[in-house]
């Protein structure tokens, strides 16, 4: 009898202990924390797609910038030609025997001298400078104007020394080089009906 009571009491004790074994309550806010973690993880799972899009967009933008810089660098290497010079009809250049330095000196003449030979000399200087620079496209040859035709006619008939004398400014004799002193004095040009001034 006592043994049965002990057995019964032991069963009750065990049942009570086992019922409490897992009867635990989580700490407050567990469900909220789990939802926050799950949502954060779900957001990270979605974002790789968005991250990939941003990565590809950034790469495309970088490629576009590099390509634009390369194009700008390439175009900067081209001759920055003056549109007025390139577009204006170019007269035919008569090669002179003067060296480039002479050309430069001629180009520095005072602007008051508006003789056609000085203008021609300036054009020679410009063409010489232009020749030093590579150009991709040469200007299209244009027919000479009336003025140019008159000049060409004059130059074809005039002696070379006369042309040279016309191209040089009047300088004091002291500044003349020994070579220039050897050049005989040239008489003034006879005014012709077709002379260009």
């Amino acid at each position, binding site marked *: 009898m006592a043994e049965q009571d*002990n057995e019964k009491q032991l069963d009750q004790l065990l049942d009570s*202990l086992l019922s409490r074994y897992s009867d*635990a309550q989580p700490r407050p806010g567990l469900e909220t924390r789990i939802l926050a973690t799950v949502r954060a993880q779900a957001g990270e799972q979605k974002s790789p797609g968005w991250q990939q899009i941003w990565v590809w967009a950034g790469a495309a933008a970088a490629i576009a910038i590099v390509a634009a810089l390369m194009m700008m660098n390439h175009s900067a290497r081209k001759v920055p030609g003056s549109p007025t010079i390139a577009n204006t009809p170019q007269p035919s250049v008569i090669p002179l025997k003067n060296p480039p330095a002479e050309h430069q000196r001629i180009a520095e003449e005072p602007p008051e001298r508006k003789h056609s030979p000085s203008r021609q000399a300036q054009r020679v200087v410009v063409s010489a400078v232009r020749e030093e620079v590579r150009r991709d496209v040469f200007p299209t040859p244009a027919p000479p104007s009336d003025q140019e035709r008159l000049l060409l006619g004059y130059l074809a008939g005039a002696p070379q020394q006369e042309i040279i004398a016309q191209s040089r400014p009047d300088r004091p004799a002291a500044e003349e080089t020994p070579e220039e002193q050897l050049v005989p004095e040239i008489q003034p040009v006879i005014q012709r009906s077709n002379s260009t001034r």
Partner: protein
Amino acid sequence: MAGQVMVGEVILENIKASKAETPLEAVEALVAQHTLMVFRIAYSVLRNHHDAEDAVQECFLRVLKYGKDLQQVRNPKTWLARIIWTAALDRRSSRNTVSVDDETRELLEHLPDRGASLDELLAGKELQQVLEKLIGSLPEELRHTLQLSTVQELNSVEIAGMLNIPENSVRTRLMRARKLLKEKLSSLLEAKHG
């Protein structure tokens, strides 16, 4: 009748799951319904609030990875219970089988003397800790079945589904486990009281 109620709950859960538009919504529904059950399953194994909550979080993150396949799960409750059970066991895998040692005997020293009532015996936490030690010393198949049976939210059918054993085996194992616990507890109490 209990079987009909269980089938009804399964149908209701499947309806709720099918209404979820995204995997996240499906997981959120599972969290709202089963967090307490999942926690208690984890606690029955880990015996620690902090570890149990970590296991619960890990469980739902695993569930989220299933993505769209969630809607194809036939019995979400049992499926979820199996996941947390596996997660909790993985966390506890480093612990060895507990044996009754000096610590247990020391706990018994704090028990009330012979003749104390059941309420007096249960008032202190020492006896609960002794029981934990005794359950830990059981063979693995008996221990697992007994631990799951202490979770109020699970019945014998669901435990059988989680352990992949017949329902009769669940009852048999529970009987054997209780018998062993009674013997050990009785011997310890007799040793204390002389």
